[in-house]
């Protein structure tokens, strides 16, 4: 299998995985906006995590930022799969940023809140998969064209 075809497969897989993360983050964003994370008895059983001060940055739900990041990763992966070389760099950059953010959020859950939320853990798994894809994608020999 040629390197180019392998890359298309990897980026297509990355786009599909990003969609799973996007769905998860969208759901969490909606829960944050409706306030469901601030009560007991709703569908969310992750109050300690999603209702904590760490779940918002400057008043914006972290989940909303996650949804934007997943959408970015999806878009870059799609363009990269269609042969836009510069998008590979953007994809790698956004996934690295998400990976770093995920490590921070896992630290917060494990050591500061002492509680885990299954939706957040799913998102972490998705980001780790995307990071694995970034590492596994064979390097391109052609110089990126604009």
């Amino acid at each position, binding site marked *: 299998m040629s390197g180019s075809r392998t890359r298309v497969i990897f980026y297509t897989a990355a786009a599909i995985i990003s*969609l799973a993360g*996007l*769905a998860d983050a*969208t*759901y969490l*964003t*909606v*829960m944050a*906006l*409706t*306030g*469901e994370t*601030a*009560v*007991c*008895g*709703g569908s969310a*059983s992750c*109050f*300690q995590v999603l*209702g904590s001060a760490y779940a918002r940055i400057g008043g914006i739900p972290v989940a909303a930022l996650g*949804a934007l990041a997943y*959408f970015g990763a*999806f*878009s870059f992966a*799609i*363009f990269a*799969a*269609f042969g*836009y070389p510069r998008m590979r760099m953007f994809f790698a950059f956004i996934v690295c940023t998400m990976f770093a953010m995920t490590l921070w959020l896992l630290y917060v859950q494990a050591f500061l809140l002492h509680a885990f939320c299954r939706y957040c853990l799913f998102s972490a798994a998705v980001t780790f998969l995307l990071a694995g894809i970034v590492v596994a994608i064979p390097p391109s020999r052609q110089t990126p064209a604009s």
Partner: protein
Amino acid sequence: MKRYLPFIIVVVAALVTLASGTVLYRAKRPAVLTIPKSALVSGSGDADSMHIRGPASARVTIEEFGDFQCPPCGKLSDPINQLERDYRPRLRVIFRHFPLPNHAHAREAAFASEAAGLQGRFWEMHDLLYREQSVWSNQADVRPLFESYAGMLRLNVDRFKKDMESEQVEEHVASDQKHGAALGVRTTPTVFLNDRALAPINLNPTGLHAAIDAAMKTPPPHT
């Protein structure tokens, strides 16, 4: 066509995400619950057996349906106490039990508060249960802890133990829960400001302050 395909895919994904997010938001958005005028607590009759802080003449009434094992209720307990002090005598706070079935010790905690209430120390037990929530919530058997709390509050512990098992206490909790269910309460805390439930997103000190200030400017609906 292939040139435009990635743009089309990205735009379609964005539209589908926005549409599904909007549909989900509408489905999840909590219904606005209201208390019918006939069910509002006036200050006489039924009010004698209820847990109320603040005068009957208060301009604004906060009626909370709470669960002692629910972390958000615990988080809201101190701010509501503080509000009651800040707005006294213009604010009245009512507590009603709504123990959720997924909280193993919530009903027992409600019984403990009622048993303390029979000795005139409901609010002290209420505050203590919320303050110690993380301690007793994870215990297999909470009775010894609740009995020690009764001792700390200088209650007659033998009477407290007996009252915790009494029908009177059980009926009071069941009655509150039935009342809440009839109003459409499903989650805790559900907080009614006069006759209208506050959105969960406003269940924080800032949101409560703003809602109370707004309610202070309008005449209470039950006068």
